[in-house]
């Protein structure tokens, strides 16, 4: 069997590429190592009913994968830690048909224009590989617009004064704001900030044959029971309906086969455990910024930058307690407002940077939200006679509101993905090892912006506020090391794009230098991290790269 293109990974990048190639008449085989709980492969008009409002299944029992026993990852902060300090779940974006799109609460902002020229706009930082992208916003804008239409994005053009220009309105209006967001948005405005309805990959009206979101609240970490989230089921469904795409789940691609300067196909292991190979004219890798460099390394690719400059978003989580306000954070689509002021340098942030001896600092998008899951709340409290009182009073679930700032993470060459020398996955292949510690920029930016977010909560009337970060800087109770690994599932940059083979792994269309029929179609190619969620940008890049392949 052979195909015009083999795509590895069925998340938003792989699905978008599959749709573009299939629409052009290419035969596509789409491999996914996880299970299929999303779409009927015999009748793609039919979406499956496996997703549910079930905290046990999705939070405690790894329903969307990866199972940390079958597919662990390892973590260390640097070589001085030894081979690893932790093995298990590290930045584990779902491993399932649909990839990361299935679990996200679907905030899909575009980047700013300066996000594509960080070196030109802001300048270098010691110890970091800050660089301009090999393309600019204007080149990507048509693909942003296409991705918004294809996924189905709700939002309000013009509501965010910092947003980059756009060629048209959002396909749908915003959904209803969460009650807590109405309060935190008002308080933010009082302090001169600029909150706006979060662009969401969640239907607010009937769109593309799928219903509007009914605000069930099981959004972040959960698949959508009614398929109101468009990422990536929309692209996947259209791709499959062409008849040109074969989606093969539960199959791990273990090696890209090459001859000379071209890929010839892949080796893979199916659910029966048997290794096979398949030929293809092109190989597209879209496994995410951890699994993609892992596959390139498993394939023997030897570019010294493969795996390096891994970026995550440095999360500053600021919460406040409000005895008199019930936020009912379990209702709504998890995050309905954001503000971007922390991405825009002002006199105060410039002063903070100068005092810290840094040329500049930049935060990230700030998501307004509150927790709503009872099991998660219960595990925060101690057991014993006080448990019920805590759960009834619910300081965590009902009376807490706050912000998560997805802080820009600088590209640092020593932050990387490589192959663990000892730990294996269930199929016997070396797992990805993540070596990561934040650059001082992230810590200074967090220290600067965290108290400003707390001030919003104090304006709302918070009785107390608290600031924590992920990754944390200290060991947890009992010397636990997990907190040193970033929680963020916004992973980027480990196979960066650029114009020169000496300083990048791929070109501006994701083509691996020296192997031009191998294309990377996920957030691995990001040059810098911005402070925005990566999904829409990676989908737009995937569409651009796939369009170049068929043109």
């Amino acid at each position, binding site marked *: 069997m052979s195909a015009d293109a083999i795509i590895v990974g069925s998340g938003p990048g792989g699905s978008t590429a599959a749709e573009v190639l299939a629409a052009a008449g290419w035969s596509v085989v789409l491999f996914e190592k996880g*299970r299929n709980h999303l779409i009927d492969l015999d009748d793609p008009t039919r979406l499956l*009913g*496996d*997703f*549910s*409002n*079930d*905290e*046990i*299944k999705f939070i*405690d*029992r*790894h*329903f969307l994968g990866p*199972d940390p*026993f*079958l597919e*662990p990852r390892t973590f260390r902060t640097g070589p001085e830690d030894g081979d690893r300090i932790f*093995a298990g779940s590290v930045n584990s974006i779902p491993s399932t048909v649909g990839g990361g799109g299935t679990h996200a609460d679907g905030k899909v902002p575009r980047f700013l224009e300066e996000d594509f020229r960080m070196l030109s706009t802001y300048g270098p930082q010691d110890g970091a590989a800050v660089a301009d992208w090999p393309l600019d916003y204007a080149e990507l804008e048509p693909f942003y617009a296409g991705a918004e239409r294809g996924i189905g994005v709700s939002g309000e053009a013009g509501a965010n004064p910092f947003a980059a220009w756009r060629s048209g309105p959002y396909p749908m209006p915003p959904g*209803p*704001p*969460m*009650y807590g967001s*109405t309060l935190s948005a008002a308080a933010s405005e009082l302090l001169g900030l600029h909150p706006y309805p979060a662009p969401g990959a969640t239907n607010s009206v009937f769109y593309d044959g799928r219903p509007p*979101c*009914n*605000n*069930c*609240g*099981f959004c972040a970490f959960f698949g959508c*029971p*009614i398929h109101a989230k468009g990422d990536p089921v929309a692209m996947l469904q259209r791709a499959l309906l062409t008849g040109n795409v074969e989606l093969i789940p*539960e199959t791990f691609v273990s090696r890209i086969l090459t001859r000379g300067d071209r890929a010839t196909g892949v080796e893979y292991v199916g*659910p029966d455990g048997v290794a096979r190979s398949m030929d293809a004219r092109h190989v597209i890798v879209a496994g995410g910024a951890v699994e993609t460099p892992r596959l390139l390394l498993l394939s023997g690719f030897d570019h010294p930058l493969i795996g390096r400059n891994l970026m995550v978003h440095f999360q500053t989580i600021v919460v406040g307690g409000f005895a008199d*306000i*019930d936020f*009912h954070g*379990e*209702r*709504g689509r998890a995050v309905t407002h954001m503000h971007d002021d922390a991405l825009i340098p002002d006199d105060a942030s410039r002063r903070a940077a100068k005092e810290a001896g840094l040329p500049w600092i930049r935060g990230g998008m700030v998501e307004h939200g509150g927790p709503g899951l*009872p*099991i998660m709340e*219960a*595990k925060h409290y101690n*057991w*014993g*006679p006080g*448990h*019920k009182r805590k*759960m*009834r009073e*619910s300081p965590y*679930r009902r009376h807490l509101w706050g912000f998560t700032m997805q802080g820009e993470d600088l590209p640092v060459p020593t932050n990387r993905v490589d192959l663990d020398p000892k*730990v*294996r*996955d*269930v199929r*016997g292949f070396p797992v990805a090892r993540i070596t990561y510690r934040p650059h001082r920029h992230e810590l200074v930016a967090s220290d600067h912006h965290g108290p400003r977010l707390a001030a919003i909560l104090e304006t709302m009337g918070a009785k107390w506020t608290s600031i924590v970060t992920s990754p944390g800087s200290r060991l947890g109770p009992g010397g636990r090391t997990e907190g040193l690994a970033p929680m963020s599932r916004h992973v980027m940059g480990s196979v960066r794009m650029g114009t020169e083979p000496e300083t990048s792994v791929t070109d501006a269309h994701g083509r691996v230098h020296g192997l031009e029929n191998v294309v990377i179609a996920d957030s691995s190619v990001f040059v810098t991290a911005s402070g925005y969620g990566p999904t829409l940008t990676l989908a737009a890049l995937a569409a651009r790269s796939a369009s170049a392949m068929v043109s």
Partner: protein
Amino acid sequence: MAIWLTTDEYRKLAAVVDLMIPADETPGAAEAGTVDYIDGLLGAFEVDPPRIWAGGPFSGRTGGPAGFAEFLPLSALDELAWRTRIEGSLGIAEREFNGPVVGLHQRYREGLDSLGVDFVQSDVQEQARRLKGNEMFASLVYEHVCEGMYGPPEYGGNRNGIGWSLIGTVGDVQPRGWTDDEVSLP
């Protein structure tokens, strides 16, 4: 009747979970079915499909068919992971690709043993002292008690929605969801 626990273990675990979430004017964790939740996990492979992942998309509590009650089949790899997690690796090569794994069976059996043969008959202060003396086991049980108290009843816990009633929540809400006013207003 218990699925995997012995009768003595079931009684002892009931005392443990009631220490963690005691009865007051409302039922405690034992009456809420958390021991059955844990026993259902420990004995997940006594039924087919195994009681690991409830079905979907709706429970039937707020409309639609009662899909949660139909547990989903596991793939071969899913079964390997969950059998290993529950039973331990037991020297079986395919479960030990990264070394031996101690399963929940052993952790529960040894943890309950460590509390002593007279645990159930002991007073609450003595029970709490012994349980706090085995912090690892207490942490394990508490994780599961929280799941069994406040998770979907289809897993055997949260009997008659006792946990959700305690905290004034309705649990799963699909396909009804929440109206725009319920989302946006106090």
